[in-house]
């Protein structure tokens, strides 16, 4: 059952082979057993989960079941969830019980899904290793000494260790795809605007996008069917007709033109990752796809542009955490400014403070034009690169990350090294394009490698088809760490 697809679980529930309460109980048991070692969850609340499972069982009994009804889903702790502690991985919100549900949570509730718990994450989604969480790092299920990636590391770990059948994540610069790659699962960051940001605690508003993390492309499609959709409460949400993201899964890949950006296949990528990615591409050729070399000449600008824009937006987005109305407030202070300073100094971790400082700096009088405006211009160039590439190909592929999972502590004292682990994923956020990572074998030390698939705007169904066809002829996505096989 641990390796069952969402569709299989749905069938078990529909045919009354198992109830949602039983299924939820099974996963809760596994969470209880494994979480102390892996730290994937910040909050688990059996009572609330089981109450939802009962509701789901009633829905099933009355014939109102939808594809995810009764299935436990792990929710990244960035989504405000009514009645649940919602911390965003920060001491600042360590006492914040949300009085409302995020748009995404509402959609899962309406679909009858069960919230199995709130997953650990880098503080305010700022990090690539899950080491910036106030709640301590998450461990990689493939190797407990390695990082799971970040910022959605808790969600990636929960799915990889089969503590949840699927999970939600958010991706500002790679935060779904990078941990998916490092933990050997699948994850998709949709086109910007497809999934509502309402109730998703903002890091960098123009880049943040929620998306699903699961074992397979087919599961991602079912998850995305629930998550995507217009929300009047998010002005950047896109008003489009609903789609069935699973509709094209079975399509053949004959004649698919895969673009391989020459800038991705140069120095920087480690040999083990290169080998796995090349093997995956060879598999695609066998499936009838052809490959073309494309160029994304401004790739090298992605990281500097991102590290101007994302901190700029974050510095402003995080201003509301001031100790006045909710969240952490320093126990002792002398006056208003002292209260602000101490609350924020004590409530935020080092990486969050670093980015607030960078963001404040680049928006300051006299620097704004040189940094922020310049970065916005380059952001357009990066988007134009992709437009040009998509004139030559249907889909772009490359590695999700330059290396397999690195060791805990290896990069935590070197922010720039850490930032470079998002080299391949950041550009899609800057362009607003959808990107996904699927398991493509293993590299050094038997750590997973992710294949990065970038589609054109709104090409999610096509990307899922491309991933699904690969997963029909490979089994990387259903592999799990030996020691975790029950």
């Amino acid at each position, binding site marked *: 059952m641990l390796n069952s697809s969402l569709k299989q679980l749905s069938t078990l529930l529909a045919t009354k082979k198992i109830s949602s309460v039983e299924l939820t109980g099974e996963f809760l048991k596994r969470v209880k057993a494994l979480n102390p070692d892996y730290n994937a969850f910040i909050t688990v609340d059996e009572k609330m989960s089981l109450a939802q499972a009962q509701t789901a069982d009633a829905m099933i009994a009355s014939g109102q079941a939808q594809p995810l009804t009764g299935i436990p889903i792990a929710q990244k702790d960035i*989504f*405000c969830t009514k009645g649940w502690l*919602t911390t*965003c991985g920060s001491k600042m*919100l360590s006492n*914040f019980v*949300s*009085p*409302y549900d*995020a748009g995404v949570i509402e959609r899962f509730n309406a679909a009858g899904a069960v919230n199995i718990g709130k997953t650990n994450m880098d503080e305010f989604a700022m990090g690539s290793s899950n080491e910036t969480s106030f709640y301590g790092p998450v461990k990689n299920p493939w190797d407990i000494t390695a990082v799971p990636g970040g910022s959605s590391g808790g969600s990636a770990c929960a799915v990889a260790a089969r503590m949840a059948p699927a999970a939600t994540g958010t991706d500002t610069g790679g935060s779904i795809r990078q941990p998916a790659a490092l933990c050997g699962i699948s994850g998709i960051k949709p086109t910007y605007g497809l999934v509502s*940001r*309402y*109730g*998703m*605690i*903002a890091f*960098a*508003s*123009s880049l943040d996008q929620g998306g699903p993390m699961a074992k397979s492309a087919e599961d991602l499609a079912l998850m995305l069917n629930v998550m995507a959709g217009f929300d*009047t*409460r*998010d*002005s*950047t949400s896109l008003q489009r007709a609903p789609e069935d993201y699973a509709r094209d899964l079975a399509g053949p890949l004959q004649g698919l033109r895969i673009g391989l950006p020459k800038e991705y296949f140069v120095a920087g990528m480690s040999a083990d990752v290169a080998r796995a990615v090349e093997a995956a591409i060879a598999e695609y050729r066998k499936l009838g796809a052809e490959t073309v070399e494309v160029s994304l000449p401004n790739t090298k600008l992605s990281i500097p542009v991102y590290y101007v824009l994302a901190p*700029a*937006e974050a*510095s*402003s987005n*995080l*201003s*509301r*955490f*001031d100790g*006045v*109305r*909710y*969240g952490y407030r320093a126990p002792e202070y002398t006056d*208003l400014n002292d209260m*602000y300073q101490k609350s924020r100094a004590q409530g935020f971790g080092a990486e969050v403070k670093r980015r607030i400082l960078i963001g*404040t700096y680049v*928006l*300051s*009088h006299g620097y*704004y034009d040189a940094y*922020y405006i310049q970065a916005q211009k380059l952001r357009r160039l990066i988007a134009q690169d992709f437009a040009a590439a998509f004139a030559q190909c249907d889909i772009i592929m490359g590695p999700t990350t330059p290396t397999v999972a690195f060791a805990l502590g290896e990069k935590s004292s070197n922010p720039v090294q850490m930032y470079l682990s998002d080299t391949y994923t950041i550009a899609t956020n800057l362009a607003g394009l959808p990107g996904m990572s699927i398991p493509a074998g293993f590299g050094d030390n038997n750590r997973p490698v992710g294949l990065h698939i970038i589609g054109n705007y709104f090409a999610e169904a096509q990307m899922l088809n491309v991933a699904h066809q690969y997963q029909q002829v490979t089994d990387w996505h259903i592999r799990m760490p030996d020691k975790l096989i029950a």
Partner: protein
Amino acid sequence: MQWEIVIGLEVHTQLSTRSKIFSGAPTAFGAAPNAQACAVDIALPGVLPVLNRGAVERAIRLGLAVGAKINSPSIFARKNYFYPDLPKGYQISQYELPVVAGGSVKIIQIGGDGSECEKTIRLTRAHLEEDAGKSLHEDFQGMTGIDLNRAGTPLLEIVSEPDMRSSAEAVAFAKTLHSLVRWIDICDGNMQEGSFRCDANVSVRPLGSDKLGTRCEIKNLNSFRFLEKAIDYEAKRQMEILEDGGTIRQETRLYDSDKDETRAMRSKEDAQDYRYFPDPDLLPLEISADWINRVRAMLPELPEAKRSSYMAEYSLSAYDAGVLTATREMADYFESTVKLLPTQAKLCANWIMGEVNGRLHREAMDIAQCPVSPAQLAGLLLRISDGTVSGKTAKDVFDAMWRGECGGDADIIIETKGLKQISDAGEIEQLIAGILAANPQQVADYRNGKEKAFNSLVGQAMKATKGKANPAQVNELLKKKLTE
């Protein structure tokens, strides 16, 4: 040295939308603290702003009314600073590309000699923004209370060029703008509740200089009188400093109405860097030509146009036309009245500006609440113009109408009270004959050149008829009899 005062105003008008500019919470004044603050207003984690198009429409209305350019796209920007009543840690405002760019307002001032002087004040821009909440420093013993009801209330900040040269001009501009925003129904103009408040930028320079002096900004002036006094005080303060060889520090100042003085609040050096940048939660605002045209079509005739048409059509003075177009309700009242008495426009104007306005003012009422309807007033004015009652008697009739007697019908009041003017020549001649016969001394005095005696005779005639005799006829017939 002779000095010239240079003034520019920033006027914050609270827009009359029912809900806030970026949330669905109501904007009504006076609710219990924080009863009108929703998740968005208190800036819970994860909430997002959604623009209220009603606020944009009101900004467009102002733009069209002042002949400005409507920018499309228009951009919302974050103004970042920390304050407990600013829940997000930034205010959503506009920086580059405000909704309204340019435009102008004409002001008319009446000199001491009754002469009229018209001046055009240019506008720089008008931009949309959200109001902050309120910090309550009393009642909490060493702590501060925060009321976020006002947080997110839509404001349109209207910024003028430094085109005013006296406090009187600044007041005239503020009053004209105040009247305009109510006229086009975008703001209730309630200054006590803070719906219309001004910041004044004041500087002085030697008369004839074309270089602007260093300015000071006086914040939050919420009455025309304070605006005038604050500018006068500030200009005098600056002139004295300069005459003593000092220099003006650019700073923000507060006006203390109790002491009638301005006080430094913060200098330019401590001015914060607001780190404006486009709000990534709000897309650039596109305002289509079609939208602008729809708003234009719904715009009422503007006061300036109405004023000109009153002057041309009814031969009213600019002053009269100005008073009658002070509010839309006033203009409506005048037009409804004059429509029934098209040949008596001046009479209508005089009565509305005099009797009606005076009475409203005494009773602290608004013209919309006037118990005498335009039709009823026209009924009375008709009886003045056709000689049925004198102007003096008409005031008594008006009082009765105000009290609602006889259903406010002038004719019935005149009839039942017997107030009809005596205009029958025969009756008046008979009356005069009697008075002359009874007052031989006065008759003799008059004939000996004592003009005063004439007035006494008129007075007796009026007294004998309880004021109902047509005074013009009495005068005429009396003169005739005395010279016979």
